[in-house]
């Protein structure tokens, strides 16, 4: 008995979506525990024994039963649509990520490009939220976001293109396939790999609007940024989207630089390895978040345009030369 491709794809997407939501919920707990450990605290403890493992569920339930408030002067249609518009691209990025050979929704020929394209859409929802709230803090935050995201999109893309160039393909499974061997991971590629990985992490931090690049939700200036007016389920959706995007970026980083599902042991361990590597990338980002102070707006823009962008362009050029000299891992 064979299942039509549309149906099997639908089922795969359904399973993936739920898995992602589950992982994302627990990623928040991980972050809180990790942050607490860095600050010599304990973190969430009481909901669920041991160590508050039910806390994310409790949070979700709490947010769901909270009152949904729409500010009177808000632009209702835009305000109400914003969380969805924000969430959808954040979820869509997972569509092209294969979690093991053949285990994914769609392993497109242009997988990396698809990822980048879809995550570029995130800004639309963010802007809608900031503008639709009709609140000066939210609007300021949206403007800062627009500024920051166009500044860091290019370095992010360029850094992500380094492994693509080394592989000679934008297909995610091909990129993983090029990282076999003991020193095969692209992060271990001499010089270029490490630089690209660092650039990727910096740009990812900025793209996720995390400290030290969190000017758009700077608590001390803008309260909570573009989502200051949101509450209840809509707020939950925005949070979910943010963490999903974060996780997606971590997965992409693990796939591009850390060899994806490759690892010792039998093949069925692949997805586990992949998840562990993604969590590792996520923890690096979290570690930075809880260790650094916020950077000023002009410094953020200067870092991007005057340092990161030229550096990544040069890096990409250097990679091109390396590939031209026969250093690529083309198929």
């Amino acid at each position, binding site marked *: 008995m064979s299942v039509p491709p549309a149906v099997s794809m639908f089922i795969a997407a359904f399973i993936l979506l739920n898995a992602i939501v589950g992982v994302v919920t627990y990623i928040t707990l991980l972050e809180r525990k990790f942050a607490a450990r860095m600050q010599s605290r304990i973190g969430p403890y009481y909901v669920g024994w041991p160590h508050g493992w039910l806390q994310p569920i409790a949070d979700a339930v709490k947010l769901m039963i909270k009152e949904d408030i729409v500010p009177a002067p808000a632009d209702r249609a*835009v305000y109400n649509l914003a969380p969805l518009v924000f969430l959808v691209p954040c979820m869509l990025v997972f569509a092209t990520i294969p979690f093991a050979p053949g285990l994914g929704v769609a392993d*497109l*020929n*242009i997988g990396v490009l698809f990822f980048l*394209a879809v995550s*570029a859409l995130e*800004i*639309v929802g963010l802007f809608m939220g900031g503008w639709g709230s009709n609140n000066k803090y939210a609007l300021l935050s949206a*403007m800062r976001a627009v500024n920051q995201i*166009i500044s860091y999109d290019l370095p992010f893309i360029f850094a992500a293109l380094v492994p693509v160039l080394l592989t000679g393909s934008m297909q995610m499974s091909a990129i993983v396939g090029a990282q076999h061997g003991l020193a095969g991971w692209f992060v271990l590629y001499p010089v270029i790999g490490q630089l690209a990985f660092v650039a990727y992490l910096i740009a990812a931090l900025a793209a996720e609007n995390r400290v030290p690049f969190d000017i758009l939700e700077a608590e001390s200036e803008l309260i909570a940024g573009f989502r200051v007016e949101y509450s209840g389920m809509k707020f939950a959706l925005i949070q979910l989207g943010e963490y999903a995007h974060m996780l997606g970026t971590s997965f992409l980083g693990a796939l591009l630089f850390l060899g994806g599902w490759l690892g010792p042991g039998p093949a069925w361990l692949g997805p586990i390895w992949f998840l562990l590597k993604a969590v590792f990338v996520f923890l690096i980002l979290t570690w930075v978040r809880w260790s650094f102070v916020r950077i000023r707006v002009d410094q953020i823009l200067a870092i991007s345009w005057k340092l990161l962008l030229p550096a990544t362009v040069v890096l990409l050029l250097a990679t091109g030369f390396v590939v031209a000299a026969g250093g690529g891992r083309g198929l």
Partner: protein
Amino acid sequence: MMARAAFLVIAGIAVAAALALVLRRNTVHGALFLVVNLGCVAALYLMLGAIFLAAAQIIVYAGAIMVLFVFAIMVLIPGKEETGPDPRRTWRLLAAPLGGALLLELILLVVGRTAAPAPTGAAPSDNVAAIGRLLFTDYLLPFELTSVLLLAAMVGVLLLARSREGSAEPQGAGPEASVRGSAKPQGSEPEASLR
């Protein structure tokens, strides 16, 4: 059959979004409808199998260019997102019969046309390598020219958007001058990035 239905739905949304973009007074709503429209066009590319083009369309238009549009709107029309009544409305209404005639003509031309054979020698649409190869062989010159164009546009934007040259320019200080100074980048930025 499925494809036809999907096409009709997507194309309908695209046309509706385009109409809304033109008819809505609120510029920010207009910009958002433009995102919808561009997204639909990307979906149409996808239906034609041009995956690379669709992704590029989303990155460049729905992502970067719309962001710039929105930014320009927010910076240049603070607190006045609604544009007032059209001062030359009657003149502009003259465009309606002309546009209608063009539409009619197009419908007459397209209906009853049989599909022409696919162009020969086209690259596989989702093969980035093939597209790249084409770009660096047959289309090398337009590609390089575009880079010259971007350089010229960049020089131009810096030239026009720079609000004050040094400090010894008394007439550059008035509010009028700053308005004039800021009026231009609105024009040239989307232009620069469109190409």
